[in-house]
């Protein structure tokens, strides 16, 4: 392995990254996931953590571009140079750029994630059978609206499971239209357009208006590439037109005729001889995950390796089940050291002795001496010093932060009060709780700690009872987060799964658990706090939070202590 001159590296381990734009080759969630997995390659063998920001300046700014893309090192069209990245440091240092004249996939052909239909976002399965015909790409057959679709199993005729393929008729990405689909025809600079265009841009990206008139409304979005879209040529992103004529012969599929390099191409109009519009046919493409893992190695301080099997070897090679080479591990640990110990296990709450359910009046022999409840706050009890809270929840419209026997409150005008002793207000509770919620209708407050829960109504308490009693699995070790969902329902979270609790029936609804990232895409699946606040879902991991709006879009990522605790 090699490092950069002076062993350039980050001077902190909580590295942040931001994705500035997307490629039209793959759906945004697939790109998000490829980058997250690429970072995970490095966080698994070092103390580094990677947190995604959605605005502002992150350490590693990730972008796609073509040819001249804003730095002194232009890309070179399809193939050849795939991407580059800069060693750690300020400004462009640490950034990673990907050549969008490449065909970005997961490395083994089109990676098409479906939308709508009944496949719940599953990937297309190629080939698939439809009415006895085998399809190796999305099709509009069987539909009159021209929207391409695919089966997500091998046989649609038998399974009837399908979804829609990326298409500008379905959605756009980036731009300023919140993924709204194209409107055709639309007017741009007084000209009418019936399809996506690169007019008005120098970066070759295809775009469209999302209203009938761009000149007046200025609403636009970028067009996703269809899976039959050509790459490069002079029609990047346009779908192949079959059949097409070339040198007076008719072609119904891609061909390498006319070329000496054997690359498959097609025309994007019905007659190449007259229109000369063409592009390369989709091939296996390049694995965005593998190339990103390599580039992020540079962004962390690794230079190229001479070991052919190392990730940091300069040449691209597709590997099905990838794992870091020892050379890569030694290189990155030379800079940042090994991962510190096992995954931190949260402190076990000090379990209370099974105290009587309702605090009994002390009999004379049991007379307890009153203990002064004023507590001397050690420096460690300064809320702004705490990196991670045990639980966060809104009670009586005030955000409560719980940590080791204490809690703080943020009033609606942003004033922070506390610390208070938990035992002072809820004496039956243990020192450490995992989550809590206030039931909107009855105002009962549920507290969860490990496998137990308590229900407070005013000063009265019911519990502890086992969370199993609610229908949660017996092996579930805790409830990390809770979100009230109206009509007496509450979502209970634990890592990658969540359950829906019917509060009235005191029972989990059937059909659960469901996976957090299938419904709340874009938030960490290992959040240690999940709560509802002012109509937004909050997912917290370490010192950051991800805020999701009612449309299930993550619209903000920030620091718990700055934005919520008002430090």
């Amino acid at each position, binding site marked *: 392995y090699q490092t950069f001159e002076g062993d350039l590296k980050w001077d902190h381990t909580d590295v942040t990254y931001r994705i500035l734009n997307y490629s039209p080759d793959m759906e945004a969630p697939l790109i998000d996931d490829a980058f997250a997995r690429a970072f995970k390659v490095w966080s698994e063998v070092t103390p580094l953590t990677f947190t995604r920001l959605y605005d502002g300046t992150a350490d590693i700014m990730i972008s796609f571009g073509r040819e001249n893309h804003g730095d002194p*090192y232009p890309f070179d069209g399809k193939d*050849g140079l*795939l991407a580059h990245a800069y060693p750690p440091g300020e400004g462009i240092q640490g950034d990673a750029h990907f050549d969008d004249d490449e065909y970005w996939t997961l490395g083994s052909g089109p990676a098409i994630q479906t939308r709508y239909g009944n496949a719940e976002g599953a990937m297309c399965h190629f080939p698939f059978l439809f009415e006895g015909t085998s399809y190796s790409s999305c099709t509009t057959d069987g539909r009159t609206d021209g929207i391409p679709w695919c089966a997500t199993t091998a046989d649609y005729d038998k399974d009837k499971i399908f979804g829609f393929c990326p298409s500008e008729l379905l959605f756009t990405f980036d731009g300023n239209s919140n993924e709204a689909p194209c409107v055709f025809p639309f007017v741009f600079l007084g000209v009418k357009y019936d399809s996506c265009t690169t007019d008005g841009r120098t970066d070759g990206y295809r775009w469209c208006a999302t209203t009938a008139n761009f000149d007046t409304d200025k609403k636009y979005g970028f067009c996703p590439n269809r899976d039959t879209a050509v790459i*490069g040529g002079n029609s990047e992103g346009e779908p192949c037109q079959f059949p097409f004529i070339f*040198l007076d012969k008719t072609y119904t599929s891609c061909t390498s005729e006319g070329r000496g390099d054997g690359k498959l*191409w097609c025309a994007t109009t019905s007659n190449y001889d007259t229109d000369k519009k063409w592009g390369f046919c989709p091939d296996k493409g390049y694995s965005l995950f593998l190339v990103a893992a390599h580039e992020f190695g540079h962004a962390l301080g690794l230079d190229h390796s001479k070991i052919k099997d190392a990730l940091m070897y300069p040449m691209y090679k597709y590997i099905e089940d990838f794992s870091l080479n020892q050379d890569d591990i030694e290189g990155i640990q030379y800079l940042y050291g090994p991962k510190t110990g096992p995954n931190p296990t949260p402190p076990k709450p000090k379990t209370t002795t099974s105290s009587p359910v309702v605090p009994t009046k002390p009999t004379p022999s049991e007379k307890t001496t009153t203990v002064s409840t004023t507590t001397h706050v050690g420096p460690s009890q300064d809320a702004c010093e705490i990196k991670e809270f045990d639980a966060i929840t809104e009670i009586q419209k005030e955000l409560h932060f719980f940590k080791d026997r204490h809690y703080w409150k943020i009033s609606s005008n942003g004033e922070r009060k506390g610390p208070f002793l938990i035992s002072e207000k809820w004496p039956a509770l243990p020192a450490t709780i995992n989550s809590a919620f206030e039931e909107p209708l009855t105002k009962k407050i549920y507290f969860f700690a490990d496998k137990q829960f308590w229900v407070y109504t005013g000063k009265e308490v019911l519990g502890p009872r086992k969370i199993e009693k609610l229908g949660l699995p017996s092996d579930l070790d805790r409830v990390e987060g809770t979100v009230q969902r109206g009509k007496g329902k509450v979502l209970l979270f634990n890592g990658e799964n969540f359950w829906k609790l019917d509060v009235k029936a005191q029972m989990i609804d059937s059909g659960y658990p469901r996976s957090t990232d299938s419904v709340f895409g874009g938030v960490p699946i290992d959040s240690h706090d999940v709560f509802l606040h002012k109509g937004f879902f909050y997912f917290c991991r370490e010192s950051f939070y991800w805020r999701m709006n009612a449309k299930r879009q993550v619209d903000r990522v920030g620091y718990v202590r700055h934005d919520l605790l008002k430090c």
Partner: protein
Amino acid sequence: WSAPLKSVFVTFPGDVIKNMTDNQLAEEYLKRYGYIDVLQKSGLQAVVSTSKALMKLQQQLGLEETGSLDQPTIDAMKQPRCGVPDIRN
């Protein structure tokens, strides 16, 4: 079997054809990835340093270090790769 069609090679508009000669390809590659100094002198000095540069490239890529522009080296230069130079000047 019909006689194989004589392939007609067409120049495609907008094709980023790298119809460079192998020497031009090598020259550009060695400069882009840091094997020869961009401000390279010409003449005999250039020939010597190109041969040295090829040796360095062949060593980096685990090829036989011949110092000459042989086919394995040309094929390696056409492989897709990362754009970060191998040698930092």
